[in-house]
Each structure stands twice: as C-alpha cells, then as structure tokens.
C-alpha cells in the first residue's frame, strides 16, 4: 500500500527514544508520525534492562540529562503510566570491594552531589540493612535513591500509545524529501512519502545509516552486551546493585571485554545480570567467556546466586558515539533534520529528557539544557 501522508514531524524509530520524542512532540501540539522498519521496541530497546541510572554518570552534560530524565520519568509515573511501564523507584546501591575502590567511589559521589544527585554513603556494617544477601567483607558503598527502573519494551509501547502519534511499523526509511532551498521536507519510505517540515532520527544503532540516507554523517557504532536472566525467585535483591568499577568501564575507550555486572531483581521474579561491554560489530553469536564473567561478578556480589540457574541470555547492541555522548538536536548541515540517538547503554533512562529537548527544539523554545555538548555535527567528517 503506497500512501502519502502529511504531518508536523516524523520520528524514525519506534524504540523508547523515538516514543519519548513522539510523546513530548505531541504534547507540544505537533501532529506526529512514528515510522519503524520493524515492530515497536525491535532494536536496542528490546534488549535493554531498563536502567534509569544517575549513579553511573560522572558530573557533566550526560548527568544533567539523566537528572532531567529521572524527573520526567517520575512525573510520567505519577501521571498514571507507572504501572503500565513497570516503573520502580527502587534506588541503586554501588559497592566497593577494597578501600581504594571505595575512595574512588566516594570522590565520584561528592562530585555527583554537587551536580544535584542524592548519594548517601553506606558504611560496611549498614550494607546488610539495604541488601541482606550481599557478600560479607565489602569495604562500603553509596546509596543512590534516584536510580529507578522501567520495563523497556512496555515503556516504548505505552509512551507511544500515550502520545496518540500515528505509528507505522514495518516501513523502512529510504531517504529524505528536500525543498528547493535544500531543507528537509519529509521522509521517503519503501511504502510512500511522508511530508513534514521536521524529521527526527531516533533510530538507535541504525542512526548512522539513517543519517547517511539523509545525506549527513553521524558515526554511531555498536557496542555488544549480554544480559543473563535467572529463573524466577522470590524477591531477595532490592536495589540495582553493582560494583564500583562499572563507572570506569562506561567511560573507558578500551575495546577489550570489560564486565562489571549490575544485579537486580524484577517484578516478574527473575534476576537480571548485566551487562558485558565489548566491541564486536553486530555479531550476535554467543560468547561464553562474557557470560562466565557476568556470572562470576554476580556471584561475588551475591553468593546465593551460585545455586540459582540462568535460564536465558540475550544480546543487544548499544549505539555509541566516539565521545560517549548522544546526538540531540537540530543538524545545522540539514535544516529540518534533528537527531536523538547514540545513547549507548543509557537510552532507556535518557529517553524522556531527550524527548523533551527535541520537542523544545521543534517548537522553538529555550531548551532545558544547553544542547552544545550534544551537537550532531561535533565530529570531524569522515574521510571519503
């Protein structure tokens, strides 16, 4: 069926970031269409754990975006979406095994507090009050009450539903329409054109390809991650718990395997352990060494897990940009084109803030955050 549509903005990508862009654009009064080549949550969103974390971010633009997003997630939950997206304000607990790691963690926490994060030091003898099943002998930790969780696929689906945007799945973007002045005037798809004065690239790991099809370069690369899922258990792990070396990994540029698992219970019962981080292109094949490292890390934190069975594992690809910040906002190289992608492993958490900033850019309002660090054209053009 070939049809031609007209709207105010067309969002490419029905993952959680595209859904949040659609929600805030629609709330700003824009007639919105969302296009995806697959189904809802078919890409990285569907492979995410649903971490809404402020704890793992160093002070800077990403932390500011995380704090804005955390406020917006809490607001959406209060508005009544909380149950549908399985929002849980469970809080995070970051632990350190050695005095040295703890000193590093406390330095980070001090900086985060200055940026507006609640970060409460927890002495070793108080750790069991927060997490009774934690391994003994840890040096201490920091409690982050603002860390929260949603179920990513449900979040994308329900944000889209709440937006009332027209959702066109199974439709692939093939290019953009341009006006005589070169400005973007809509989207070409394999099933007809969509006319709109604005196009938002929220295509996640596919964002680089969407940018290229729109005639600009955006160096989005995949970073592979495995998550281990256990059999369902009665609730025994109350927070998102992870070891302090996670922070170092997120900012790391090393291509070697780095694993520092986040361990958490879910409302449905299974414990999630994840995620590994490695650069392996889009290779989906199973990596037992990565899974073994996840299991080792998790059982070090929670010894009782050694007797618990992993029933499955899944792989996802985090979309990252070279400086580990997302691209958010208008692309000066192609007027009418905006980007909202490259959130690496934090896309679920950063989706709401990203959606709000995109809606503000679309309606010409002053954005809540300075968009300069997120400029899509901040990378040198790739040599042809």
């Amino acid at each position, binding site marked *: 069926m070939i049809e031609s549509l007209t709207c105010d903005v067309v969002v490419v990508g029905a993952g959680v970031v595209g859904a949040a862009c659609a929600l805030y654009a629609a709330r700003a009064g824009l007639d919105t269409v969302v296009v995806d080549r697959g189904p809802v949550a078919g890409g990285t969103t569907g492979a995410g754990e649903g971490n809404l974390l402020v704890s793992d971010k160093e002070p800077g633009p990403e932390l500011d975006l995380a704090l804005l997003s955390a406020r917006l997630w809490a607001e959406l939950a209060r508005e009544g979406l909380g149950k549908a997206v399985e929002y849980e304000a469970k809080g995070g607990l970051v632990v350190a095994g050695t005095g040295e790691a703890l000193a590093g963690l406390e330095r980070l926490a001090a900086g985060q507090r200055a940026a507006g994060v609640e970060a409460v030091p927890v002495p070793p003898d108080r750790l069991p009050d927060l997490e009774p099943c934690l391994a003994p002998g840890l040096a201490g930790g920091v409690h982050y009450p603002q860390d929260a969780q949603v179920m990513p696929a449900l979040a994308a*689906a329900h944000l889209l*539903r709440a937006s009332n945007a027209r959702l066109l799945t199974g439709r692939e973007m093939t290019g953009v329409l341009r006006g005589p002045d070169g400005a973007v005037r809509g989207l070409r798809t394999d099933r007809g054109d969509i006319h709109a004065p604005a196009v938002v690239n929220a295509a996640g790991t596919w964002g680089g390809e969407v940018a290229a099809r729109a005639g600009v370069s955006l160096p989005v690369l995949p970073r592979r991650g495995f998550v281990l899922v256990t059999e369902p258990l009665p609730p025994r792990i109350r927070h998102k718990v992870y070891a302090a070396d996670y922070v170092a990994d997120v900012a790391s540029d090393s291509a070697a395997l780095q694993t520092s698992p986040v361990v958490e219970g879910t409302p449905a019962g299974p414990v999630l352990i994840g995620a590994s981080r490695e650069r392996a292109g889009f290779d989906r094949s199973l990596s037992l060494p990565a899974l*073994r490292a996840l299991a080792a890390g998790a059982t070090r934190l929670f010894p009782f897990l*050694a*007797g618990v069975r992993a029933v499955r*594992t899944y792989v996802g690809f985090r979309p990252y940009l070279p400086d580990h910040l997302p691209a958010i906002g208008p692309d000066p190289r192609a007027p009418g084109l905006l980007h909202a992608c490259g959130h690496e492993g934090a896309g679920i958490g950063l989706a709401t803030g990203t959606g709000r900033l995109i809606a503000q850019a679309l309606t010409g309002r002053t954005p809540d955050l300075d968009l300069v660090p997120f400029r899509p054209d901040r990378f040198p053009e790739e040599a042809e």
Partner: protein
Amino acid sequence: MRAELVVIGAGPAGLAASLAAAARGTRVVLVDAATETGGQFYRQPAAALGAGRPEALHHRWRTWERLRDGLAARSVRVLTDHHVWCVERTPGGFTVHALLGPEQEEPAEVHARAVLLATGGYEHVLPFPGWTLPGVVTAGGAQAMLKGALVAPGRRAVVAGTGPLLLPVAAGLAAAGVEVAALVESTGPGRLARHGRALAGKLPEGAGYAARLLRHRVPVLARHTVVRAHGDDRLTGVTVAALDTAGRVRPGTERHLPCDTLAVGHGMLPHTDLAEGLGCGLDGLAVAVDAEQRTDVPGVWAAGESTGIGGAALALAEGHIAGCSAAAHLRGTAPGPAPAALKARTKLRRSAAALDAAYAPPAHWTEQVTDDTVVCRCEEVTAGAVRDALDLGAGDERTVKLLTRAGMGWCQGRMCQAAVAGLAGCPPTPSRRPFARPVPLGVLARQHTQEELS
C-alpha cells in the same frame, strides 16, 4: 573426557550415527540426558520396574535390539544422565558442556574434534480453553508414561490434535487397557488420501494401527477438534466439534465426551538450540544439512528430527549417513554410507514432506481460544494479553514476548511459541535459546575462574 566424535542424543539417529562411526574406527562418545539409551522412540522401562515384555509396547523392537547389541559390541563410550546445555567451539574442536542429572548441578565436559547433533524433536500443543487442567497431557507424554513408567495415564481417554503420532498413542492406550473414547484428528481423510503415493511407505504402518483401533472399537473422528476441556480441579470431559473444509468449527456439531484423560498433540518441532548456539544455519525451523548430513559449520553434523521431523526410520538412515561422513572426514577417507540408507532417506523424506503437508491444525484454531485461555503456562500469559500486545504495536512473536513475557519462563517458549506466533498471525520463527537448558550461575562462575587461571 576426550573423543574424536561426540554424538549428542541416543535416540535412533544418534545410535545409528555412533555405530556407523565406531565401525569405521572412530573413537565415539555418545551423550544423552536420559538414564538409558533409546531416546523417545525406544524409551525403555525403568530397570527397577522389571518389565517382562517391554517389546509389547514397541514398534520395530528388533531394530532396537540390533542397535543395542551393536553398541555393546563396539567401543562406543556411552554417557547417560548428561544434560547438555551448550556446545562451545574451541581452537582444537568442540567442548560439550553438560550437567549431571537428575539434580543437574555438577558440570561435565566432553572435548571432541567433531560433533554430531541428534537432538531430536519436541511436541507442540496449541492452546484451547481448559487445556491447563490436570488430566490433559501431551500425546507424547502419554506415550512416555506407557513406555517408560508402564503406567496408563487414566481410565477413559480422548486422543486429539493432529499428526501421525496420534494413531500409535491411541493404539498404545487401548492396548494398555484404557478405554479410548475417541481419536479426534483435525485433518480430514481426503487430505491424507491425496498424498497417498508419497505415503506408500508409511501406509502399512498406519493401516496396522488402524486395525488395532478397530479391534479396540476406538471411534475415529476425522476433521474434528476439541473445542474445550471441562472440569473444576481436574478433567471430567471434553467438547468436540466437526470442522468445515475451511478449518472452522461447524456450529451445532458440538458434543460432550466424558473422559479423565485427554492426550493432545499438534505435531513435532525440531530441537535446534545446540545447533543455533554453534552458529549452524537453519532451513525453516530445522537444522540445514547437505547430502552428507553436514551443517554449514565445519566439524558439525546433524541427523534425525533436528534436521526435520520424519520419524524413526528416517532418523536411522540419516544417522548412519552422518556417522559415516564424520568418520571419513576424521580419517581423511571417502564416506561410503550403505546405499540402502541413501535410498531409504530419499524415500522417507518424501513421505515426511507429504505427512507434513497433510496433517495440519485447523486453519482457524485461534478463533476457539478465548481471551481468558492461558497461552504461556510458565508466565501465565493469557490470549487476551497477547491480543492487547498486538494492539500496542507488536507485529511479531518477539515483540509479543517482550510486551507480555510469553515464552520468557522456565520452558523458554518451547510450549507456547507456535501458539503465540499463531495468535500474532505470523509464521513461527526459530527462537534463539543460547542455553539449551538452565545452568547454575555457580557453574558458569567457576569456569570463569578456571579461564583466568589458565
């Protein structure tokens, strides 16, 4: 444990493969999860039961005796009670990771230069109202109870669904003294007849079962289906109805059949988890193999139901061909399988394709599935929840799973996958299950420590 060839699965395909390879001088280790070799087809009564005439429950007992005696005569190392959860590619070949049963807590490893997957198939059952009641069992489950535990599942049974398995199950139950109230097959007799020529090899077998059903006065209701199972805490009866030629229930044809057991099955699906974990390509839902039963991963062969559902005789032929090929490649010689096996494979594959085309669940089975019918039993997801997910923008089985948790539980969708796909209106797709069975985190963690030390 080291071997040249490790064969996974000791059913007809795995047994034939092990014998063929061992006869050609290959050191074979044969691994199986059960306590005895034989697989589902040659399932053995537990030794403690002291069965006097186990052959009474079996078809082609002499073939089994030949395989069993061959295994004893050859130097095949048999590892029973080994539950394989993953096969890993290593620099020198492959490592088979297993858990020792019945607790499945202690790990065991087999290292080999080549792997032969004879992992068989599993039954699939489509949901209908009442199907989760105690007293409803799978057709294969009823057969396993008869063969393995020498126990009849009830006193008055209905056998229902579709596929060639229903005949022997009904005949077996009747022979064991169960009153079989009806065999309810959704395929019409005309469709089977149309595929008669290709089925020639199978027909004498089918005719034998039909004669036994006649002898036990089992009514056969072709082009019928079970629309509901009744009972409060357990099954008390079923409602069956006739189907029209389009596969819809014909209104007004419903009738009630009292029974305490319903054995239901809608065919078999290939077990492909280990093959997919190794990166082997699939052909539809089965492992893709070439004329020598090689997969597209060097060093990995596959035979039997995992390469396409076709029955025990086909599995024996494929196993033999695969075993010959694996041995030849390990020895650097020409395969040379028995010409009879090649001929049998060609013929039996043709009849398997015909059976597959002939037997099908009712085209509109989803219309009978009420919103409150549980589809995924592990996660207790109803058909209504699946329909809501479709409404939320899920267009396929994977997204339905993400939005509802259908297929995320203990069985990892083995039971409900085809049903979810049917409700979503799309064909079932292979679902990746990197762990062929659940594995304790402690086992994985210890392997990590060993890796770091080595």
